[in-house]
């Protein structure tokens, strides 16, 4: 059994949520975990301004920012915009859009971890711990830059290598 521990006091968080209650609750959970550095933003523009200061280690963002831009736009900017200063920033996406379609869209945008609201503190912690302690390799392939979407590798797999298939960039 792993005895690894996460020292959250060393981690700089950015929480983006226009809902003050939900944003405050995430902050309070992080503070209970001994996090000391928590920036907050309510919009994509203010989030980008903070990310550009190069101190953010983990982004936790709501999908629906109740404005022109969504949390998905923010993820797209981080992963693909030439002005993005940390294209491999770990991103945890939170949303009440918990249906599979949204999970797939988030994954294909380059989100590291997906938290469906309403969530339990344990499930939130589990995603947070995974994002910090189990970073995945990144992949650049036609139309996608982000964490490897294949979480499990089968060493006995003998089928075709679909990543070389021009019709399949993991969008199936």
């Amino acid at each position: 059994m792993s005895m690894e521990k996460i020292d959250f006091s060393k981690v700089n968080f950015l929480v983006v949520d226009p809902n003050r209650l939900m944003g405050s609750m995430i902050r309070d959970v992080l503070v209970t975990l001994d996090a000391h550095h928590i920036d907050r933003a309510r919009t994509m523009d203010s989030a980008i301004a903070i990310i550009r200061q190069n101190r953010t280690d983990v982004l936790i963002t709501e999908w629906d920012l109740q404005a022109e831009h969504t949390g998905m736009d923010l993820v797209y900017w981080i992963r693909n915009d030439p002005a993005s200063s940390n294209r491999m920033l770990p991103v945890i996406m939170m949303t009440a859009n918990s249906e599979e379609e949204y999970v797939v869209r988030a994954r294909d945008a380059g989100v590291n971890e997906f938290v469906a609201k309403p969530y339990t503190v344990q499930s939130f912690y589990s995603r947070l711990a995974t994002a910090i302690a189990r970073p995945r390799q990144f992949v650049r392939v036609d139309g996608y830059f982000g964490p490897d979407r294949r979480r499990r590798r089968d060493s006995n797999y003998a089928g075709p290598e679909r990543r070389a298939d021009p019709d399949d960039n993991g969008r199936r």
Partner: protein
Amino acid sequence: MAKRPTFIPPPQELKRKAVNFKRGFSLQLEPEVVQKLEQVVEKATDNFTVEVAEKLKQLRVALGEIGGGAEAKRYMREIRSTSLEIKGMGAMFKFPLLTAFAKSLNDFVQGMDDPTDIQLDIIAAQIDALYVVMANRIQGGGGKTESQLLDALAVAARKYKD
């Protein structure tokens, strides 16, 4: 022809900075830590009821303002967004029935920009149901009546969605 993928090793800076064997929280949380985190959520329950009351008011106002045309689109977007927020909050604070009614409303208004009178009536009924849950502080899944109401709203929503 499609390019072969390029693999980039996982970034290690954050892991190096935060993961160790001495200080902090285990990857599998101890029960006492879970309890502490759950207390954080419990403490926010009072704020939750105030927040939801405000959101319900916003829903009623938005519904009352829908008159058709471009404005209707704006208020319907507000109803979608607000019902999604309530859906995401309810069960976290032991109000899963609130989440269920909010989901019902949110599902119903997806893609709906210019609702008919019947559709507006169904939206109003769904907002009323949310009010009932909060007014009576119905935690858990509610009883038989609430379950029947949820089913009835689902039937109406299916019938008049398009």
